[in-house]
């Protein structure tokens, strides 16, 4: 290994094969547009071989690049085959364009970070008084919102009322009186309906039936009436008990 321009290579120092290629290209000390691609290929392949001999482990993408460059080199040296697309010259041009672009951005980055930077070279005021923004709220509400809200509160908080419309009912007292009177006049079982007034109809009849049923239960409790029903929902029969 007697390379006149030995690159002491720190394998971790390269940010990928393109970075390595750019460093090698720079060592040619020519404008990238005058770059010798063949020379660059040789430089790269030499480098990779050196690394191998030193038993350095190269990442796969370095080896992929090496294979591609070896192919490029042979294509450049062999007689032209117009069938092969893209041509080796085109491939070489693309490589050169990529190196130019990376180089341009590397230089731009270097110029950027070398600028007078805030907090390093130039400083803003160390103890600014600070500016204050006093936030004031302008509260919005409409008269409609106000009175609608009051309407809702009023409705919400007035006592709950049940207004039962006036309608004919038979009170429980009336029913007890009526059933106990009628039961005394009968000997045999009679349906509960037969205890209702003849002329009862509509909601009054329903009320009379309900009250008479409760009256019958009350009289049964007092031991004055027997109640019988053959099955659920079958007619309900009452009979007086002989005192």
């Amino acid at each position: 290994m007697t390379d006149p321009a030995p690159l002491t290579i720190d394998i971790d120092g390269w940010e990928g094969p393109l970075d390595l290629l750019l460093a090698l290209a720079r060592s040619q000390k020519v404008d990238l547009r005058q770059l010798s691609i063949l020379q660059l290929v040789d430089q790269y392949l030499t480098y990779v071989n050196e690394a191998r001999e030193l038993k350095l482990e190269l990442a796969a993408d370095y080896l992929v690049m090496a294979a591609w460059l070896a192919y490029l080199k042979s294509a450049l040296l062999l007689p032209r085959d117009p069938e092969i697309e893209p041509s080796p010259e085109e491939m070489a041009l693309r490589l050169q364009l990529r190196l130019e672009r990376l180089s341009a951005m590397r230089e731009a980055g270097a110029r950027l970070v070398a600028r007078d930077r805030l907090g390093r070279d130039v400083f803003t005021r160390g103890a600014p008084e600070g500016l204050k923004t006093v936030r004031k709220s302008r509260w919005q509400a409409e008269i409609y919102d106000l009175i609608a809200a009051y309407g809702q509160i009023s409705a919400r908080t007035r006592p709950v009322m049940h207004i039962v419309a006036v309608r004919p009912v038979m009170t429980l007292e009336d029913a007890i009186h009526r059933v106990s009177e009628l039961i005394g006049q009968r000997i045999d079982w009679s349906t509960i309906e037969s205890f209702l007034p003849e002329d009862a109809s509509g909601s009054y009849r329903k009320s009379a039936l309900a009250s008479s049923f409760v009256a019958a239960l009350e009289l049964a409790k007092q031991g004055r009436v027997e109640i019988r029903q053959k099955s659920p929902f079958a007619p309900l029969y009452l009979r007086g008990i002989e005192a």
Partner: protein
Amino acid sequence: MTPPDEALVDEVGRAVEAVLFAAEQPLTLADLRAYVGDEADIAAALAALTDHYAGRGVELVERGGRWHFQTAPDLANFLRRDREDSRKLSRAGIETLAIIAYHEPVTRAEIEAIRGVQISKGTLDVLMEAGWIRPAGRREVPGRPLMYATTPEFLSHFGLASRRDLPGIDDLRAAGLLDPVDLAFEAAHSEAGGPEAVETADEDD
């Protein structure tokens, strides 16, 4: 009045100006010396800078042997700005305001009794900030609670000549504003032939 600018635009003057500007606290002459160097020039530079900044928006001042820049005191009003945000009153806010308007003067406990829900102090604060309510004396009962009433701004904001212009309960009912949801419920119910009960849903937001 001020010395010629040439006197300032020397290296020491510029350095002192920059160091004082960038400093996080007022600096003594010794502090400045540590940054800039020579003492005699610093004193002269401070004098020249003080003159230079006199009457400007920023001034160089000495307090107890320490130097710093500060904005001119007469410009303090420019260093703050008011930003007005239009904000809508919350439901709690509008209900509280309505109760005060209809029942004033009224204590907080009374407002809560009418609303059926507690109110936070923030709610009354907002109404005060808006300028719509004011403290209106104390109720002469145990604890002497503060009473609240509406303000003239309240009337003007809501376009009322006086509190008597607020619609009464009957007006509200006529306008369908007496809890429209429940009224609709009631109507639907009586149509269906059910009991004519006025059920009032009393859940709150």
